[in-house]
């Protein structure tokens, strides 16, 4: 399974139950690299549907081909079935009261790809792919 997350410079994800940031270029990139549909939690439904990304709500267990977009919770519970994590870094600091709940390197993930691109509202977004 692959997990996709967005992080600020402090690995933050949410503040006051709201995503820290968003960028249509990130959504475009997710959509562009998707083979089938994106698996999401209800929190992300409005965002993903606005970008016309095919999606399904997470229910039950994930399969090997699942691509799971996570915004509103930690990802530790999914690690046993995860072999790839894609991180979009905003290269900004935002307030955060919920942050990533793991240290990627400590979980055996190695960075295999790094790409910088300009977003619609962010000067530089860094896409990092981790695999194990």
């Amino acid at each position, binding site marked *: 399974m692959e997990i996709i997350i967005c992080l600020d410079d402090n690995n933050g994800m949410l503040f006051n139950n*709201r995503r820290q940031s968003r960028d249509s270029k990130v959504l475009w990139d997710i959509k562009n690299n998707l083979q089938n549909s994106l698996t999401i939690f209800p929190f992300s439904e409005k965002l993903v549907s606005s970008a016309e990304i095919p999606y399904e709500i997470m229910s039950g267990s994930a399969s090997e081909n699942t691509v799971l977009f996570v915004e509103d919770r930690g990802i530790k519970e999914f690690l046993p079935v995860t072999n790839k994590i894609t991180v979009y870094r905003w290269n900004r600091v935002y307030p955060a009261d919920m942050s990533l709940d793991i240290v990627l390197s400590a979980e055996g993930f190695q960075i295999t790809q790094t790409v910088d691109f300009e977003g*619609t*509202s962010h000067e530089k977004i860094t896409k990092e792919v981790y695999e194990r």
Partner: protein
Amino acid sequence: MIKKGLFVLSLLLVFSLLVSACVSPEPPKDNSLPAQESSFTEEVSVEEPKPDIGKEGFSLKDIPAFSDKPYVAVNDNTPYFTENEIVADPYEFYSELDSLGRCGVTIACIGKELMPTEDRGNIGQVKPTGWHTVKYDCVDGKYLYNRCHLIGYQLTGENANVNNLVTGTRYMNVTGMLPFENMVADYVKETGNHVMYRVTPIFDGDDLLCRGVLMEAYSVEDEGEGICFNVFVYNAQPNIEIDYATGESRLNESDSEVSRTEQTNTYVLNTNSKKFHNPDCSSVSKISENNKQVFEGTREELIEDGYSPCGICKP
């Protein structure tokens, strides 16, 4: 666009705040906003500003002492805006300074229309109340105090507006306020929506240095779904003790490794060439009066603001 010179709008806003000043609403249970009523008891008047009067629902006494976090949520992160204060037409308002020279409430409807298209200019000539040019090795960038925009430059493009600049610690400015400004700025750029945004410096009595700032924000078109917060950001700096009455500071005695330096001099600036000179430099007399400006502060401060030293007097 609509700038601070819109006196009529200012009066309307003042009137609005005064009208809504005496009502005490039930605190909202969620992030929805109270209708009609305001939790604002602060009276903002052009003639007689009273920036240190607290808000209904907000009291400095309820704020825990600064420890290791730059801010604390207030009112369950629900801003005090009332329905009639929320508009989608961009504007900005900055209170006049009070009798002690202190800033008061600032409020804006942030939109792309107000955002700057140029890099920030020099603000080194402004000396907000409580200002001291003082350095500590333990502070990022050395300088304890920044001229701290209440409404950040990236949001409304205000440079040296004295009604929008307070003396704030580096920690308050960068670690505390900036992340919230970033979040609002990027949301506005991405969505094209507007955000109601209010920053109020909170002074205790006649203190010259604010204890912190109350930052409130609420995204208009999506009714707070994108942006909604209400936080008190401490005007504090780890390892430094601050006298808020005067702005004087000292190293926390438990940290003896850090040294303090303070070097303030008088310089003459050429705001056109961006050179700075000693007052007795022969070049000073050749500077046009329109471009000449006296500056009291440090050399490093000027360099940080984009100035370079004169090659003749080598200040």
